[in-house]
């Protein structure tokens, strides 16, 4: 049998490309927030995962309310309408945390590690708040059309052996992420505030000398990071399902992405997220069927041809993190070495 290139490609698209892209988009939004806080406030914010959970929770609550009122978007999930509410809640939470916790240490010029510890406390509080308000269980809040492309229809129309299915939420995730990232970059490159943020991140003293108001920069950095966190959290919840504890486990891949790309480099965070997401998906994917399409009979593997079981996907982001720290601590885009 000649290698069936087309089927192999569709298979890869269905199980690696599409889920990987959606995951990369979610990670990128989270990693962008982390890298912004890292760049402007100069500490690793451990509360970011739970900030995502908080934003997602607010989005879910608003979605339920909208659903109860019968408001919807047709084929698109109602959560899209509720998203601004989630973003507002996350921004409020982040600003409150900054005002009540982080500002104190910033003014005292405490060592960064003290701020990291304080973020641990904020994480605890947010985690408790989320679990108190919405409970620790799985929450489903998707509605609208489930699939954009259905596997069976795809098979019928193309006549291929392999089907391709794209969930609405996956497509939505990527589209929203692209739009948000585009807006963010325009903001950072074109507006006066964005430029002052980049200046502050690059060289704090010089920025202060040129009359940039540090409190304003910090405020906007928190607001953007929190808005991104809420979007990322809601999209992740839509795509998979919302469970408060999963967000804590996203911290590691997000930090790996931010450090891989270079701390304080927004482009780096996105590239890092894509690399981390696709490494995770490809390393934990069982390549057996793919190889069966490509290789002649005797070469075909008997096993699953899976490098690591999916339970070890943390190990992938951890390995990436370790390699970056060992080989190039400043990351791909030469970010700051904190």
């Amino acid at each position, binding site marked *: 049998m000649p290698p069936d290139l087309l089927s192999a490609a569709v298979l890869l698209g269905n199980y690696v490309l599409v889920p990987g892209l959606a995951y990369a988009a979610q990670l990128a939004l989270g990693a962008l927030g982390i890298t912004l806080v890292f760049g402007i406030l100069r*500490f*690793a914010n*451990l509360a970011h995962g739970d900030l995502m959970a908080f934003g997602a929770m607010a989005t879910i609550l608003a979605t339920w309310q909208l659903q109860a009122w019968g408001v919807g978007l047709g084929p698109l999930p109602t959560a899209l309408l509720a998203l601004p509410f989630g973003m507002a809640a996350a921004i409020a939470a982040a600003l409150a945390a900054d005002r009540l*916790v982080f500002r*104190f240490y910033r003014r005292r010029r*405490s*060592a*960064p*590690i*003290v701020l*990291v*510890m*304080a973020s*641990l*406390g*904020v*994480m*605890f*509080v*947010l*985690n*408790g*708040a989320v*679990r*108190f*308000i919405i*409970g*620790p269980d799985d929450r489903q809040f998707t509605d609208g059309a489930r699939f954009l492309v259905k596997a069976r229809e795809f098979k019928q129309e193309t006549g291929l052996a392999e089907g391709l299915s794209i969930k609405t939420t996956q497509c939505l995730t990527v589209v929203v992420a692209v739009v948000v990232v585009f807006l963010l970059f325009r903001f950072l490159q074109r507006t006066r505030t964005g430029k002052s943020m980049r200046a502050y991140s690059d060289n704090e003293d010089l920025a202060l000398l040129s009359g940039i108001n540090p409190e304003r920069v910090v405020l906007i950095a928190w607001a953007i990071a929190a808005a991104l966190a809420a979007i990322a959290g809601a999209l992740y919840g839509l795509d998979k399902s919302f469970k408060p504890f999963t967000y*804590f*486990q996203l*911290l*590691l891949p997000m*930090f790996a992405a931010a*450090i891989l790309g270079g701390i304080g480099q927004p482009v780096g965070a996105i590239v890092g997220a894509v690399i981390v997401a696709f490494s995770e998906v490809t390393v934990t994917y069982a390549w057996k069927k793919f190889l069966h399409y490509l290789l002649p009979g005797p070469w075909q593997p008997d*096993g699953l041809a899976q*490098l690591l*079981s999916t*339970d*070890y996907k*943390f*190990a992938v*982001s*951890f390995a990436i*993190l*370790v390699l970056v*720290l*060992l080989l190039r*601590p400043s990351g791909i885009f030469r970010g700051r*070495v*904190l």
Partner: protein
Amino acid sequence: MTPAVRNGAALAAVGAALAAVGFGQSWPLAFAVLNLCLISALMSLAVNIQWGYAGLFNIGIMGFAALGGLAGVLVSRPPVPAAWAAGGGGLFIALLILMAAGGLALALARYMPRNRTRTAALAAVVLVGLFGARAFFDPAVDAIEAVEPAKTGYLGGLGLPILLSWFVGGLFAAAAAFVIGRIALGLRSDYFAIATLGISEIVIAVLKNEDWLTRGVKNVTGLGRPVPYEVDLQQDPLFIDMVAVLHSRSLEALTGAAHEDALREFAVQSSSLFVKLCYAGLFLAVLAVVFWLSERALHSPWGRMMRAIRDNETAAGALGKDVTRRHRQVFILGSAVVGVAGAMLTTLDGQFTPAGYQPLRFTFLIWVMVVVGGSGNNLGAVLGGFLVWFVWIEAEPAGLWTMQALTSGLPADSAFREHLLDSAAHVRPLVMGLILLLVMRFRPRGLVPARSGPTGGR
């Protein structure tokens, strides 16, 4: 207040709290809380060694504690000969292949010139080694897990007394700390923190999924005990005599069957109390030894050097101290103590449940203990361990009680009331987070500040 008075007052407060549980709820419960307090204090002491002496922010405590727990299984469970026969050889070959590939890769990395060919050769060796090892590993694991999966399905342990596992657990954790230390120390503290977070998640994932080693989420129950079993005590004439003597006053008035029944009742109560006391004695001994050693270390020239490094790494480095090496040393020591504490915890539970390791409980709670106690101070860390564990344990009934009091005005079938009562358990992380933030802000040096030099307010 002088420090001595304050420390005495804090100790007395903890004692009074435990006594209140004893009188108010029950004495076995009070001692159960005390035992966990002792283990918490040991963990908090260990983290204090890392943070207070060296400023290392380790948020992977859970992983080291779990490694200690693993030692409990591997040391105390009897070996499963059928499983060894089925898959031991395959595992051994897989290990050999991995070691050979690893050695070859290291040799290549060292002796080949740095170019594309080396990268390709390295990748090839690693891939071939990985798949070669998997070819033997997978069938061996399947064979092992097929051996009576409901009862064993794993290799078992060495069948040695479980007390030995406290030592082995320390070794396991130290070995893991050595590897992480080589990679992540010497970088900025944030990176180190994230790396420890990662390794602990990986350790837990391994323990949950490698059924041939730990039975995974099927748990290992019935671990050995270093102290007698309650049932045996209740049959032991010596113990019964002892109980009779202790309770002679209340037994005097009774005769015949009533006397017998009362005696049996007392024996049951006392046996449970006696077992908990034995554990408390063992834990207290370990805690005392570690405490004494770390106090000695803190006041030795080594301790002065560590404090100097903590307070100003650059200056200490300029004076010829090898900062990274000292950090590694302290990281390994502290992690070993966490491993010991983890093994002790598994011993107390009598079972190993990988799914029970939650970062909230095993990493972040310990951090609250250290911060509350006052970092850099051993006595503070111990007191913090006691206090915070006590609050953590009692927060759940207290939270529920508060919620009931708050919602008593609402109608009984109100959904809102239902929700609040259901969620009361989740108030705990909230309370812990608030305690951490408040202590950091308003008492940055903790309840028991260190005598020499500022630490908590760093």
